[in-house]
């Protein structure tokens, strides 16, 4: 099993904690999650938690590489 880097996990949790309290996420088959459920899933490294971490990591990497601003300028 791949171990999630603790710093990365903490970063993702911090990002989610900054969300407004009334935000929910719809993702995948018949599932929706509240902010607190998202945090729990990331903390517990569930399949959803890993997916959220992956999504956030990919976003940050694309931001650092300039891929997002390049795409926005097209």
């Amino acid at each position, binding site marked *: 099993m791949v171990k999630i880097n603790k710093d990365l996990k903490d970063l993702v949790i911090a*990002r*989610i904690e*900054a*969300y*407004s309290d*009334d*935000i*929910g*996420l*719809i*993702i*995948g*088959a*018949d*599932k*929706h999650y*509240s902010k607190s459920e998202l945090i729990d899933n990331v903390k517990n490294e569930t399949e959803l938690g890993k*997916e959220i971490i992956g*999504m*956030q990591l*990919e*976003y940050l990497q*694309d931001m650092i590489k300039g891929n*997002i601003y390049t*795409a*926005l300028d*097209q």
Partner: protein
Amino acid sequence: MNKSILITRPNHDLATTYLYWWSKKIIDKCLEKKIKYFDLKGKKASKKNFDSYLKKNNPSFIFINGHGSEDVVTGWNNEILLKVGDRLDVKDRVIYARSCMAGLKLGKVCVDSGAKTFIGYTKNYVLLFLTSRETRPLTDNLAALFLEPSNLIPISLIKGNTVEEADRKSKDLMKKNLKRILSSDKSDKKEVTSYLWHDIKYQTVIGNNLAKI
């Protein structure tokens, strides 16, 4: 083949309920443009009805709203509508699956089975929503940042655009939303950015991108 649209929009859970209500805007556009449509809403989005409407009415465009995986897309209560390995009645049709992951494998199989084009997502389709608005999805201005752009795909096709144009217009609106949020100091929607970027990145077109419906 008739220029007509078969829309499936079940509403058996919150995710499908959001897609159900936002797809109503496509029905409105069909009425405005006098385009023939077949609305398999709620429980009507069954496999039996889906197959029957395809056979009897031969629509040029299938717009699926529901859950999915790389192998399937589903209707009411997650009943499978299209599945890799089944005989797929998709010849000469354009398909847009607003569902998770179907662009990964099912889309290619549809095109190999004769569909003109398949538009979908190669990863999970995601959207944020306001819990305070979940009983009134059309008033949810957070979900709108995701669903208005995806609605642009069928709306552009109805207007006579090619799949390529429809895909570009949809992505352009997501990018516009993303840019507006990123460049605003006081936006309260910063949390949206990573999820919008995800949908931009994984929205995909398979097959003939110059096709029209």
